């Protein structure tokens, strides 16, 4: 009953505004609500990862040697390759948003597909070339951890385990975010191809983009912190 009443109140023509949820008065309000909402979600993500970066910093300062030695087990080449992959996926993501904004539906879906392929590539490098060899080298805390370097005491081995604990916790959490990102992109891409009502409006793709760039930013910090620890 009151829907009509509220709509007729203002002279703005909401009935003609497509894709406007009932609780909003106009598109500007709706757009900014979504953007600010997404950013406040990203704020929680920043602090979520931030707490892990804090743990990392505290222990790196305390045990520089363990971190230095631990990092020798990681290959900067894979890390760097993955950085390139993720940066490129961020580019394809903005291109998808751009296509959506300018009304190129199929193109937008294609760029989304490219983004998820790159994201999947990232995971392949991560799992097949990095995590699996770590398993073979007995570097998974608790599963089969064994620190080979003989000159190390047991305490030091614990600290190496700490380093790898942080490594797996942080890259693992990041990896989970990549998987979620692939899921989101797959759903949105399919909806675009089917010309679903919700994706006729570019906002969902823009929001997915914000999320994906955040995942990229996390990696921008993870890469130098884990793969590029200088010798003392």
């Amino acid at each position: 009953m009151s829907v009509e009443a509220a709509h007729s109140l203002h002279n703005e023509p909401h009935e003609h505004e497509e894709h406007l949820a009932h609780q909003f008065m106009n598109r500007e309000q709706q757009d900014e609500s979504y953007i600010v909402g997404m950013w406040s979600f990203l704020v929680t993500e920043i602090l979520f990862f931030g707490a892990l970066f804090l743990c990392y910093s505290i222990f790196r300062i305390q045990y520089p040697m363990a971190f230095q030695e631990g990092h020798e087990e990681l290959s900067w080449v894979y890390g760097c390759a993955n950085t390139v992959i993720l940066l490129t996926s961020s580019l394809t993501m903005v291109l998808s948003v751009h296509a959506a904004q300018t009304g190129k539906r199929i193109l937008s879906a294609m760029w989304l597909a490219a983004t998820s392929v790159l994201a999947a590539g990232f995971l392949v490098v991560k799992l097949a070339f990095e995590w699996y060899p770590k398993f073979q080298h007995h570097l998974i805390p608790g599963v089969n951890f064994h620190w080979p370097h003989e000159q190390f005491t047991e305490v030091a081995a614990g600290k190496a385990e700490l380093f790898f604990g942080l490594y797996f916790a942080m890259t693992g959490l990041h990896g989970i975010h990549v998987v979620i990102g692939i899921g989101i992109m797959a759903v949105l891409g399919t909806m675009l191809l089917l010309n679903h009502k919700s994706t006729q409006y570019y906002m969902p793709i823009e929001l997915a983009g914000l999320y994906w760039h955040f995942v990229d930013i996390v990696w921008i910090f993870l890469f130098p912190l884990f793969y590029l620890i200088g010798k003392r």
Partner: protein
Amino acid sequence: MSGHAHVTPVKVYFTVYVLLLMLLVATVGVYFIPHNILNPPAALAVAMAIAIVKAALVVGFFMQVVYGSKLTWLWAAIGFVWLSLLAGIMIDYSTRHMNMPDGSAFDRMQSQSSVE
């Protein structure tokens, strides 16, 4: 399928992308600078500075914050500001050794980490 959105020219995106790749090369380059030229803490500082610039590029252009409203600016900034509050926890670690007037707690910590 159109909106009132700010549509950034594609050229900007490509420029940012190239900049990001160049900064990536710089980060890796710093890693290979011999340590008698750039000591490890300085190398870490440079690497982090580069990472911050990269993140700022992504936030600013890919995430469109430079074109965003004040409110978007506010919420984009507040997470990073609060992260620095959380980093206040590190003050504990840098001053805990002073708990003992003679610094003995500090010595214990030192001797532990020198086991490595």
